């Protein structure tokens, strides 16, 4: 019996609304309803027929509460991926596909919603998941600090040049500057400002860090067969993997020394590519969850796009930008320059870039890789494709 889910489900609708932090025009659940209806309209699908929901990162919007606004007829299935950070973002696609392919649900919305006025600061919510006296007692209370520890090891011990972070951040801002929906629209990264910005936690300065937005995103998944009858070109889920391995996790910084400075994806990389029957060379565009610049670099290494040895040759600005780069990354601007609603914009762009709807199109792109939140105790990634 073949249990592969590859190519059997598809994203049929996309909805995404983003606002400056603290300025959402509606409370969080209201913004989420808008995004879900947007996704359904995009697909030409009645919101009342969505019968499944899945989220990640401790989202507070229990699906049953969405039913009156959506007109939901039957709520057949709902779930959430464990973990407080962005590690579960791509894992949602695996849960949704599992539900659809086993007949538990027919149309599943994958979502995430955040408004500071309702859920507070994301950074605080993530850390509430992890904080303990070991950390607080040594002044380590924020994701930026935890990731800074790992970044320092990656630079100083593993020899990754710090300049590669600048190349990645520049590429994100370059794409964001050409995206009217991005916080960075119309603004290329000022390199001098980048290099002299205030320190947050060494080795990170301000522009190494993603900054939170209010907003909500929703993606409608149905079977690949069903998607063919809907309005938009189906973007198929080719593979998804989530999890970790011994030597990685919430281990009080006692991760295996070979894994410590990584993004945590080595445990899922082979499963991810094997399920799709692809290799890193087959990926046309990468949507990379970069909570912090160094973790984005670590994630690209983990996913097999480069190594500690050749990272400086591969992660060059010219190579990372659409349409001409060999490894276009974050074509809408990513978390850094498009906006950060717990990384959801990377999932949205992983679909749009294969529909020809990207603000920075990659000509002929047929595969996209969504690299989920790096550094989380459990991580996940997914690969999408179009015929």
């Amino acid at each position, binding site marked *: 019996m073949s249990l592969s889910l590859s190519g059997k489900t598809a994203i049929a609708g996309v909805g995404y609304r983003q606002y400056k932090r603290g300025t959402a025009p509606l409370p969080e659940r209201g913004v989420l309803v808008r995004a879900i209806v947007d996704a359904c309209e995009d697909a030409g699908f009645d919101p009342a027929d969505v019968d499944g929901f899945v989220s990640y990162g401790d989202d507070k919007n229990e699906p049953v509460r969405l039913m009156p606004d959506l007109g939901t007829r039957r709520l057949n299935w709902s779930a959430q991926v464990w973990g407080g950070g962005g590690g579960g973002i791509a894992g949602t696609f695996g849960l949704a596909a599992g539900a659809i392919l086993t007949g538990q649900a027919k149309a599943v919305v994958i979502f995430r919603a955040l408004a500071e006025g309702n859920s507070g600061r994301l950074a*605080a919510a993530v850390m509430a998941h992890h*904080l*303990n*006296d*070991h*950390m*607080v*007692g*040594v*002044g*380590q*209370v*924020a994701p*930026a*600090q935890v990731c*800074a*520890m*790992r970044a*320092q*090891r990656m630079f*100083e*011990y593993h020899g990754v040049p710090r300049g590669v972070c600048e190349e990645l951040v520049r590429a994100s801002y370059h794409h964001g500057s050409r995206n009217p929906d991005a916080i960075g629209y119309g603004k290329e990264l000022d390199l001098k400002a980048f290099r002299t910005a*205030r*320190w*947050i*936690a*060494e*080795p990170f300065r301000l522009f190494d860090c993603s900054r939170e937005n209010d907003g909500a995103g929703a993606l409608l998944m149905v079977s690949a067969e069903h998607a063919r009858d809907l309005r938009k070109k189906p973007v198929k889920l080719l593979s998804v993997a989530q999890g970790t391995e011994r030597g990685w996790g*919430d*281990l*009080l*910084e*006692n991760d295996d020394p070979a894994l*410590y*400075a990584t993004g945590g994806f080595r445990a899922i990389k082979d499963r991810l590519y094997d399920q799709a029957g692809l290799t890193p060379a087959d990926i046309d565009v990468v949507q990379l969850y970069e909570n912090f610049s160094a973790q984005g670099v670590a994630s690209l290494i983990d996913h097999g796009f480069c190594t500690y040895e050749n990272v400086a040759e591969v992660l060059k600005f010219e190579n990372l930008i659409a349409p001409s780069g060999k490894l276009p990354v974050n074509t809408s601007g990513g978390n850094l320059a498009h906006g950060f609603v717990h990384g959801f914009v990377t999932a949205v762009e992983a679909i749009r870039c294969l529909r020809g709807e990207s603000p920075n199109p990659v000509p002929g792109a047929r595969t996209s890789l969504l690299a989920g939140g790096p550094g989380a105790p459990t991580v996940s990634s997914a690969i999408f494709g179009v015929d």
Partner: protein
Amino acid sequence: MAQMVTGQVGAEGPYWDALAQGRLRLQRCTGCGVWHWPAVWRCGQCGSWDHEWVEQEFVGTVFTWNRTHHRFAGTEGLPLPYTTVLVELDGSGVRLQGLLEGPEDGLRIGARVTGRADRTPFGETSIPSIRWSLA
């Protein structure tokens, strides 16, 4: 048991009791001898439920470090900037974080450090924690 502020992770109560008294004790499995950190109730390597808490020296090597400049909520008890080091202990190989005190010239991965127990102010209370110094 030592008073907890944000809570312990799991089975490391004796660690906190010792640290509050200025000493360092770490958990070792009496079944197979492996050091466990974070502390466990059951040894996932050999299945033993029996452990001993072994006194260790505050001596080790810098594994990595960061220096905090931004005033994150919850760090008000610490003057900015402050440097946090992750130290791999001699003997057990367990890694423990602490605040770096004293001169910082020569701070690098691989630098030798010695330490002592102290307390970090937090709101109305304080948390036992380690201070490391470059050797």
